């Protein structure tokens, strides 16, 4: 897995490069600012970009939006020391496919990055209380049983194809259910839809570590 690391704290940037390298991840470029990070991602086209949310004067969430506006196929994992709820939802709104906390071990981070690189999504399991405690003041339209079922399986880490197989439905039908659920939940991405569905209690948190989907 080829990774670009964008982190303003020099010791952590250098440390992570070493730690991730030891875990078998190839860090092809590192940057300490949003501008440098954007240039590197454009130039190196990594499998995943790991972006610190607070980049000194710069904003990692704004950088993520910009990178995904330029090319929606890019895979981005936001990385932060804060478990602030608003920041989490703002991060998921940006379209990032992953959201990891600095509390995790390097191995855990590499596994999360691999999940995102494979086309899935990831939210740090430590953020589950924040996802679950937030209650929207606006009532969202309810999901159908099938939409809940699909999101539930995605939250357990199944791919869209595996969900189709499990429910004996076509991949296209699954995509339609996901699209409909995203529209109802006003979500921008699948992981965002899973986060909202968990928050609203439409689905239950998965038992294993990490809320993720490889779909």
């Amino acid at each position: 897995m080829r990774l670009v690391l964008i982190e303003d704290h020099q010791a952590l940037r250098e440390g992570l490069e070493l730690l991730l390298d030891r875990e078998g991840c190839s860090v092809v470029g590192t940057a300490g600012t949003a501008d440098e990070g954007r240039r590197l991602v454009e130039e190196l086209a990594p499998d995943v970009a790991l972006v610190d949310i607070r980049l000194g004067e710069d904003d990692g969430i704004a950088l993520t939006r910009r990178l995904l506006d330029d090319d929606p196929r890019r895979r981005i994992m936001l990385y932060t020391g804060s478990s602030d709820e608003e920041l989490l939802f703002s991060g998921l709104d940006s379209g990032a496919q992953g959201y990891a906390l600095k509390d995790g071990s390097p191995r855990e981070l590499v596994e999360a990055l691999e999940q995102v690189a494979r086309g899935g999504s990831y939210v740090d399991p430590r953020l589950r209380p924040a996802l679950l405690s937030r209650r929207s003041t606006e009532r969202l339209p309810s999901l159908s049983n099938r939409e809940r079922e699909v999101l539930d399986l995605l939250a357990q880490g199944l791919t869209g194809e595996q969900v189709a197989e499990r429910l004996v439905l076509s991949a296209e039908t699954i995509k339609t259910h996901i699209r409909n659920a995203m529209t109802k939940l006003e979500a921008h991405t699948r992981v965002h839809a899973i986060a909202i569905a968990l928050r609203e209690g439409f689905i239950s948190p998965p038992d294993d570590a990490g809320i993720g989907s490889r779909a």
Partner: protein
Amino acid sequence: MPDPEIDGLAQLRHDLRTPLTVVIGFAEILSGERPLTDDERRDYAERVLSAGIEMRGLIDSARLG
């Protein structure tokens, strides 16, 4: 009305996490089973030390209340 002491603690908590990640990451390697060269061991210990010094500086300079 925001409480400056709570704000200060939240900021400190956030700021400490970055160097703490360095401390834990390298301490894990140092205490792990994979063999390290003397240079690696020294390098990683120095990283733990400087992150620890940074954390102490953050705590010393925290303005609470």
